[in-house]
């Protein structure tokens, strides 16, 4: 994997933009079809740069649990590495959209609040990892790419 590219990708995510609202971007790492890189390898490389936790979104986990884990990771001031392995459910999509648009999740009746909002900590970011074929063929949400700022393509 090109370290320089990954370095730039992390650097751009760390930036807090001065004009764009909201200030932080969500990042996307796309594994291209012919790439031999393993997701674990990518995660370990990123771990060298930042304090990050991995969440796998697949058939064994529910949207509510993923959302709990994301919020929990943010509360620990850490980055989230979200590996997408199934089409994004409505609940999670709502939160990803809200994070991309406002840098904060917004939940109804959550943690004892009628409306729960939590500003994404300055030291936290969210990176989504997915394979190109999966994005193209399994993700039904037509604006998926638009949720993200910097995109790193792994060839």
């Amino acid at each position, binding site marked *: 994997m090109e370290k320089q590219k990954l370095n730039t990708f992390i650097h751009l995510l760390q930036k807090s933009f001065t004009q764009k*609202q909201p200030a932080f971007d969500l990042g996307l790492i796309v594994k291209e079809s012919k790439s031999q890189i393993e997701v674990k390898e990518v995660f370990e490389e990123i771990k060298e740069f930042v304090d990050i936790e991995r969440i796998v979104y697949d058939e064994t986990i529910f949207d509510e649990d993923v959302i709990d884990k994301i919020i929990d990771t943010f509360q620990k001031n850490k980055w989230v590495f979200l590996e997408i392995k199934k089409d994004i459910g*409505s609940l999670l999509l709502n939160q990803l959209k809200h994070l991309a648009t406002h840098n904060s999740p917004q939940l109804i009746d959550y943690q004892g609040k009628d409306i729960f909002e939590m500003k994404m900590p300055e030291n936290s970011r969210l990176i989504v990892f997915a394979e190109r074929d999966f994005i193209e063929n399994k993700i039904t949400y037509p604006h998926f790419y638009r949720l993200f700022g910097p995109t790193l393509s792994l060839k």
Partner: protein
Amino acid sequence: MPNPETIRFKSPEELKEEEIERKIKERGPEGEILGGIVFEEEKVVDPETKEEKIKRYIYIGNPYEERPIITKLETDANQEEIEAIKREIIPMKESFEILEAMARTYKHRQPLLIEGPTAIGKTYLADKFTELRYGKGVKPLDFYCSGQTDVSELMAKWVPKVETEEEKKKWNEFLESAEAQEKISKIAEEVEQKEKLSQEQKLALIHTKLQELAKSAGLSEKTQWRFQYGAVPKAMGLIKNPDGSFSFDEQKGTGFILHIEEVGLAEPQVINALLKLRGKRGQLAEEIQLWENGGRKVKAGPKFWVFFSTNPPEEYLARNEVDPALARGVVFKRMKELSVESLHLAADYYFTYKLGEKPKEKPEGCILDIYNHPEIGREISKVVSAFHNDLNKELKKGEEGRQQRIPLTLDDMARVADALIDTQIRSKETGRLDLTETLKKLIHFYYLDRLADEDLKETMEANLNEILNGDTGKIEFEGKLLTRKEIFDILVERASITEEEEKVRCEEEKKKAKERELKQAQFNAQDALNSLLKNPEIPESVKKLLQE
């Protein structure tokens, strides 16, 4: 002298209206829009306590209109906040068209649906409108539709209270099955038909039936169920507390702003649920009845307002036309693409760094404080907006190798502008900022690297090079026809001169000017002497003395 019969005295209301209209249409020295949103405080007498108090209002109107329709709304924001929010809105014609529509429909409790392309700013302006109404940092209640949206998320659902992880998993699996969803819907519908029961009895019956259902599915029958409202009833009964938090009252709530995004992606059953929001005379419903809670009614507070947004159906695959029944029940506004003028204006705002805060100190990675040099920003904005426009046109046709269409937004431009502050490349020849190379790299990263179509990428790369270095990109600059690169180099050179260098340069200029003056004086003296020597009336003895 005017005919006394035609003289008409204006009422105080008329004078006030004229004053507000003048402020709405206010422009700066270079013709830039300063109005559009006007803040005013008014003294009002409380009808109950008879006490005088100050109330805050905003007036919103489209400053591009000759005779704008101006809407007055109450606001919780103070003047400072309103000014700050105004500074974050690029005064494009389209922005004010949207804000004006929002203000007008909000005032009359009419739901608004805006169908327009991604870059038009629907979401951003919904946020800004909420801030204008409630104060800086307050966001609307957002709901995003997709093909997977379930009616229960919008309206209401029963959620089991489970203790262990294992139980939770079991429950979720059960609840996500089509069979369970169908059975739960049936229970609620059956109970709703029992007209003789009171609402409390209906709720108790729903609860018992849900427990029976759980038992039949092999789950604990003792599980308790909790009723949870979805986004619509929540927004109807929300109360924004003075400390910024929210509380909810289904009967006495004041209501809040609900933004339902991408409604074009919603499935018919979701649209059907949304149709419950239609009220009398095109207004929002005053209450809705939910069968999920035994038919109890939720009242819409006076400040409840719904704004729907969606992209045009031709822009994306899987997007439906807006449902005709929904379109009839809302104020439907279709927006076109951002005009080229608006795109230029946005680029100018981003690259001259008019929005947000500028860095107080030169950040690491910054060779030239470009954010303090609007003359450079203006030239960059011309290049980027032209490139953005060209690429957007191409992307609209779709890309080879990608199913999703990814139209550009103004954020892409903002990202380049912000990265330009501290991601700069130094020229090896001059030691100064190499603006052309930096811009190329950033445009590559933020615009071209996303392209799946390699041919398009190559074409756009060649176009960018042509704009920057080629003959077709040449424009007149200070009387000369120059490439953009040459113009950038001149402007960077001028801006790079440090204060110390400027001082030395000024001293040298002064020294040279003095030398020139002295030389001129010498020439003048020589001329005077020559004319004296040529004068026949001056005696030769005097001339001899002068020559010595």
